[in-house]
């Protein structure tokens, strides 16, 4: 709300709460005004920008007194958690000023995961435990360090251990957070080849040699050719700052 520019809560100084309706003696007129108020409320609510007086006039029946309706709506919302505000010659709903603290908190911007990151994530999920070299082999392109970092930062990918092969490359796998985010009870719930085909995600004309791996159901169990990560490994990888003496 604080960002509202010159927006000011619409003030129709002399008028008090609900006065507009009370002023009308004729029940039919009251009903008419009430209906028009609902319309204006819905229009302003759903519009993606402040709605001008003229725009309201165009969309409402001819005999509607826009000023009266707006003042009525404004008084209805006057003490609510949301107020009707005037921005120049237009109207909009804004969170009440005293509640703006509710809005700013936790306003974390969500970012869309890049295509490359999605691909890497999917490969880690299906092919885990998988090394970076293996990811590259599957994808056919080099995986940038940043992509993996992003996925680890998101908490979806974790280092599992080291492959017992020369160079002892780090193996990657998915985390609990990953399962949670994607609504999977267990990693085995990832759809297999037939399911992907059935859902129309994969062409039904894949070569017969094509396969989709089924990840091990226990994500924590190390494969036969995996060593666990030690603290030393983690330090080496820069993930663990050398221990300071506690207490």
């Amino acid at each position, binding site marked *: 709300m604080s960002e509202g520019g010159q927006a000011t809560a619409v003030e129709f100084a002399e008028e008090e709460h609900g006065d507009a309706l009370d002023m009308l003696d004729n029940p039919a007129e009251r009903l008419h005004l009430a209906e028009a108020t609902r319309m204006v409320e819905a229009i302003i609510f759903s519009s993606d920008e402040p709605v001008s007086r003229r725009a309201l006039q165009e969309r409402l029946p001819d005999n509607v007194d826009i000023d009266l309706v707006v003042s009525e709506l404004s008084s209805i919302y006057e003490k609510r958690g949301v107020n009707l505000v005037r921005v120049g010659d237009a109207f909009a709903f*804004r969170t009440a000023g005293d509640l703006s603290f509710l809005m700013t908190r936790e306003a*974390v911007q969500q970012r869309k995961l890049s295509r490359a990151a*999605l691909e890497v994530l*999917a490969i880690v999920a299906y092919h885990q435990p998988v090394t970076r070299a293996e990811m590259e082999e599957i994808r056919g392109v080099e995986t940038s360090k940043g992509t993996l970092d992003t996925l680890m930062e998101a908490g979806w990918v974790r280092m599992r251990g080291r492959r017992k092969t020369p160079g002892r490359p780090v193996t990657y796998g998915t985390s609990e957070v990953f399962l949670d985010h994607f609504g999977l009870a267990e990693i085995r719930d990832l759809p297999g080849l037939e399911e992907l085909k059935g859902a129309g995600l994969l062409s039904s*004309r894949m070569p017969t040699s094509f396969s989709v791996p089924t990840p091990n159901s226990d994500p924590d169990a190390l494969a036969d050719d995996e060593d666990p990560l030690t603290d030393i490994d983690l330090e080496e990888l820069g993930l663990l700052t050398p221990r300071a003496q506690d207490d």
Partner: protein
Amino acid sequence: MGTEQTNDSAVAKDPSPMDRLWTDDTEFAGTKDSSLVVDVQGFEGPLDLLLHLARGQKVDLTRISVLALAEQYLEFVEQARQLRLELAADYLVMAAWLAYLKSKLLLPKQEDEEGESGEELAAILQFRLKRLEAMRDAGAKLVNRNRLGRDVFTRGMPEAVMVEKRSVFSASLYDLLTAYAGQRQRTAVTNVRIEKRAVWSLSDARGILMRLIGTLSDWTALESYLVDYLSTPETRNTAVASSFAASLELVREGRLEMRQTEVFGALYLRARNTQETGEANHV
């Protein structure tokens, strides 16, 4: 609330392609393209066609003449074949089943008969038609509700990003799977060209058999129903060979039983009563 309003999307009126098919012979007789699949004419599969035929009887589905329905359907398939229309396998599986049903309904019930009676089979068909119709009606009710973005609207100017998700990144399972499938597909060398097939592959035959035996619990001659309806003269040999091989495979897996009373005699098949997937749970 909004159920009466006219709706532009989906299920407006039945296009009644059948009527065209029966009345406007010239259009079809003139069609030389034998690859014309009846599916394309507007039916969503054999049950849909049956439902359409059933409506022609103008009675409640419970009081419908299943025998007449089966005959109509078989006649339709016969016509289609004469017009050299290629019918999708599902239509032929249904034809085979209906031919079986018809024989059951017409023949007097034997004492030692196993499996469902003709009346029971007819009830199964009615149930399936009714269920499909119910789903179709439900779908129509659904799309005619007040829909977000068409009848009902959200806040046009959201003021804050409401973060429910702890994660900084947004991605759905669908995004993930699409990315994976797309990527694997790109890298897999897919220069495989599928030629228009003149043969039944083993997996085709298997699929068709599976669908067929799911509904047959009585001994059924492989040839008399399956092959008659499922193949054209040109593909008869390959159909027999593949179905035979596929049925052996299914016997081995314990899904099918096979019987032959004499050398070179007819082969009889029936499903082994395996418990299929349980009832769907409902919310």
